[in-house]
């Protein structure tokens, strides 16, 4: 999988207003909660804005000098200060809890919708899109959106209120002093914007070179044995020195700029502090302000500069959240599997007659893979499909199962066009064992009984015995209750195939698809399960794809495919006598 962790979202949303409206429709059901949070944040802000002015008043009382302080007044202000601060903290805690709930519930809903969407998408979607990419939308992108909901809505409100409020208070204290802040703050804001713009590409480059290094290391370590076998070690280390150097340089270039931001902001704030002190002293000299006013002014100016620098950050976050939500909505807007035809019937009491009638198909409309394919498979017959890779064998199965629909021609099942049945009932008529076995994290029992809800443990054990996988299962720590890890990592490929064969045995159907079903089972085991395979196949219409030609010699009809055409068909005997393509394939086994 490509390294996700370091991926940087470089794209701005295409239509941010549309994405915003749509994401707002998700939080709409929480609008009362959000309104409450906004009111609370307004209150908390006002309270904390009044704080410094109270402190200033208290200090003014103290400024009366030794022995002249009116403690009644001081205490009064101090009590008010405490009350204000405590309630403002409680309120902000309440806000963050409310917004957490809103954000997490929205995330949960988004994830759920995405997953349910996936189950309605056609198979072609999964063939075209990488699993890693789909997953990153549901995990990473949803997280970005939810984090933004959790913090940004309130933050943008709070920041604006704080900025406006502080400005108002500062102007009230002293318009002259406020002028200083009005000069320095825009300077610091434009500095941040400027430096962020300059360093952003550097940080993107850093992420890229980290990602590249990740890929390089992963590739080299997984090929480590080969590298050692060819004594390639030193060369590889030299190559890594280059990759490593690039990563280190990219880090230096980005971070050496990045680390200038903090001190520079500090300088701007300190400069304005110096200016306030100087000007404040003059104003004090002229009797225009009191000491207490200067001190509360300083407190306000701090309150003011914090959020104004933050607003740039928040805007950035909101933009990346919008582009993340756009990616999610793109997934949710993917065209779904076409609905079953109106009046589609349920396929039951299957006989198992299948007919390809002049079928053509291509994954890409410009490139046809199967050309005018016609053949008949009567109920209970064994049809083998052979041919070199890329001949179109697996494509036929995709059409049988209606993972894809034919471009022209039709497939008839029990005399009726496949399209006239409902998909679930058509698919239920087939059991299938594919080369790429699929197991999920669950017990052995659950994996075998997948698709056969009513199977008892005894049923499962009996098919496992037939598939010669029972002894292996019994050797697992918890037998049939052993949890198989993802991708079945702790069992071999051959054993995985045996498990899926057992699954197919348990699944009662009239038709069977075996796509290289025993390719990873070793030959002696394959021989041992031969009887069971025959039993599995008996009475069913079977479509078998196999490399090993020996396994299909008793097929009723062998279709030899080459480049999407049936070049030969017939029984093994007939094809051997013909001495054509099949004969050559067969003979090359003995060379």
């Amino acid at each position, binding site marked *: 999988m490509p390294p996700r962790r370091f991926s940087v979202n470089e794209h701005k949303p295409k239509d941010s207003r549309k994405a915003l409206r749509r994401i707002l429709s998700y939080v709409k059901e929480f609008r009362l909660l959000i309104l409450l949070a906004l009111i609370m944040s307004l209150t908390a802000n006002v309270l904390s804005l009044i704080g410094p002015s109270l402190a200033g008043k208290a200090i003014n009382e103290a400024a009366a000098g030794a022995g002249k302080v009116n403690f009644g007044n001081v205490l009064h202000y101090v009590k008010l200060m405490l009350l204000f601060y405590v309630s403002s903290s409680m309120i902000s805690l309440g806000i963050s809890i409310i917004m957490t709930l809103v954000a997490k519930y929205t995330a949960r809903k988004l994830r759920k919708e995405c997953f349910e969407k996936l189950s309605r998408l056609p198979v072609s979607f999964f063939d075209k899109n990488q699993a890693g990419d789909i997953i990153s939308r549901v995990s990473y992108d949803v997280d970005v959106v939810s984090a933004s909901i959790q913090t940004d809505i309130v933050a943008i409100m709070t920041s604006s209120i704080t900025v406006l409020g502080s400005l108002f208070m500062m102007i009230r204290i002293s318009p002259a002093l406020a002028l200083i802040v009005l000069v320095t703050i825009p300077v610091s804001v434009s500095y941040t914007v400027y430096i962020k713009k300059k360093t952003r590409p550097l940080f993107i480059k850093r992420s890229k070179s980290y990602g590249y290094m990740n890929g390089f290391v992963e590739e080299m370590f997984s090929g480590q044995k080969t590298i050692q076998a060819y004594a390639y070690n030193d060369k590889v280390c030299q190559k890594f020195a280059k990759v490593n150097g690039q990563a280190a340089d990219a880090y230096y270039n980005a971070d050496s700029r990045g680390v200038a931001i903090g001190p520079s902001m500090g300088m701007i704030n300190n400069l304005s502090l110096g200016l306030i002190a100087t000007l404040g002293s003059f104003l004090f000299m002229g009797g225009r302000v009191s000491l207490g006013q200067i001190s509360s002014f300083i407190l306000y100016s701090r309150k003011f500069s914090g959020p104004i620098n933050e607003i740039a950050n928040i805007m950035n976050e909101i933009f990346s959240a919008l582009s993340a939500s756009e990616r999610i909505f793109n997934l949710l807007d993917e065209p779904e599997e076409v609905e079953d035809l109106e009046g589609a019937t349920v396929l039951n009491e299957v006989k198992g007659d299948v007919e390809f009638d002049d079928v053509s198909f291509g994954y890409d409309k410009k490139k046809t893979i199967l050309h005018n394919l016609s053949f008949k498979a009567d109920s209970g017959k064994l049809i083998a499909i052979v041919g070199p890779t890329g001949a179109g064998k697996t494509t036929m199965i995709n059409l049988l199962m209606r993972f894809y629909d034919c471009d022209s021609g039709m497939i008839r099942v029990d005399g009726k066009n496949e399209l006239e049945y409902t998909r679930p009932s058509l698919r239920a008529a087939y059991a299938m064992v594919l080369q790429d076995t699929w197991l999920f994290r669950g017990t052995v029992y659950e994996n075998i009984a997948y698709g056969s809800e009513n199977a008892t443990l005894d049923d499962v054990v009996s098919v496992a015995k037939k598939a010669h996988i029972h002894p292996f299962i019994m050797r697992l720590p918890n037998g049939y209750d052993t949890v198989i890890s993802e991708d079945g990592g702790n069992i071999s490929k051959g054993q995985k195939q045996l498990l899926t064969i057992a699954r197919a045995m348990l699944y009662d159907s009239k038709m069977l698809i075996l796509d290289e079903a025993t390719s990873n089972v070793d030959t002696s085991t394959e021989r041992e399960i031969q009887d069971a395979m025959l039993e599995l196949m008996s009475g069913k219409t079977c479509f078998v794809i196999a*490399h090993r030609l020996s396994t299909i010699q008793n097929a009723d009809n062998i279709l030899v495919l080459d480049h999407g055409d049936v070049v030969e068909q017939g029984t093994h005997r007939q094809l051997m006598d013909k001495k054509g393509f099949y004969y050559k394939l067969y003979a090359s086994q003995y060379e």
Partner: protein
Amino acid sequence: MKFIWSYMRKHIWAIVLVLFMKSLATVLELFLPYILEYMIDTVAPTKDVRMILLWGGIMLSVAIITRFISVGANRGSVRIARKCIYKVRQDLFTKSINLSGDQMDEVGLPSLISRMTSDSYNVQSFMQITQTIAIRAPFLLFGGIFITLTMDTGLALVLIILAPILLVAVVIISRKGIPLYDIVQTKLDNVVRIMRENITGIRVVKALSKEKYEKRRFSDANESMSRSEIKASVVMSLPGPVISLAMNIGLTLVVLFGAYRVNKGVTQPGVILAFLSYFQMILMGVLILNRFFLNMSKANASANRISSVMNRPDGLETVSEGAEAPSDDYIIFDNVSFTYNGGTDAAGDGSSVSAFAGGSREKTLNDISFRIPRGGSLGIIGATGSGKTTILNLLMRFYDPQEGHVFIDGRDVRTYELDKLRRHFGVVFQNDAIFADTIAENLSFGRDVSHDDMKNAAWNAMAGEFIEDYDDQYEHEAAIHGANFSGGQKQRLLISRALAAHPDILVLDDSSSALDYRTDSLLRKNIRQNHDDATMIIIAQRVSSIMSLDQIIMLDEGRIIGIGTHEELLASTPQYRDIYETQMGEV
């Protein structure tokens, strides 16, 4: 920490300089509120314009100077971290690429990769932060406390009492919150896993119409994750309000006591003002310290993971005197027995290989003996897990056998230097690797291979045609893991690589499984004709791939159950005859 320090030590003077500059900047910054207080309390009442301008000018200059010193120090720290981490990664990479098979199994590939990447980033950021941010903490904390103490001892006590209480509260909350995030992570892994299972298994899910079941499975995981996430978030949203509350209560107390002390005539109103600034500074110190310790424990864990790889002994050592070869055959296995993990569960955690080996730890190879004369050929066949690849691992000395000896060209393999030993081989492993580089580089692979040799090898391996179909032919770029080639093309490239340097010994481990029978047989014909002087070992599932070789070994559960030519085995070994008949379909 010792590990990180061993790399930073080399830059000790640069680090000292950075620390000095950063301290200077911090001290200067600390003086700003002091000057502010002095201006308001002492200078302003004198109404001396020149003095006010002088001190205001000093404040402005200090602010500017501080910025430049601080930026310089920060850049220095990045430069030092860059140099150190480059070295760490280079050392770790060199070590990893030379690990023996045993050691590789023990660490595990994914873990090794994450040590190389995310662990190295953790160490890197720690190296940088220690020099810049961390050094400020004691200054802010102790400097702030010291100055406030000299300004007004009584008022300072308010701060000194508050800081530790705050620190403890924050630490306790974080301690509770971080494990909650671990739970969220595990549950997120579940959600992602079910998702992935449904994507990879979409055909099965649809074929069996299990969409509803899967929706429920996902929804359960999703809801459970959501619940833990809310819990963790709520707990972790506590520190913010707690800190601001504590800070504001402190402020209030300072104002109250300040007023009291002004009244008593022991302090000035300006002092209260300065206190408010110092107060925030001290708080900042506490917060930085808290973050620094969290950071340190993370970096320490990472550093330990890195150094545990680096401290491993160097793979397999060359011995000066090996065993005596029993005959002058080119390759000899002499009563070799072998078990992975040295027969004991060294890893202990039952990871990787050993997990489901079947309970009893049987020997992977048991008393294996065979000889191949120079230029001879050997085929190895047997069920999965019968020990075929292990023979190859011992021959090329990725592992040493516990019993018996392996000889090549009359010498115990343990007496060869590893790369000299391996220069004898051209090898294709099961699931072998194609690297993201040109085809030419993938074939020559760092060896002196002429263009003609490379071309011949490609054509012999039946790869010439598709390679030369590319416009840029041998300069065509392979994607990571050769993802732009089909399975069959990859196998043919790998065989070309093995042939390219005209190896003395050619080893092919199940390397034609993706080829159709025709290509496979043509390929074998080419090798027979053009590499007849090479000693050959072929491991295969198909009898047809090995039946024409001089000698065939049939393995079963680590033992040789039949050895001889194809005809001899047909006669002597029923299991072999079985396989042959099944595969060839002859009755």
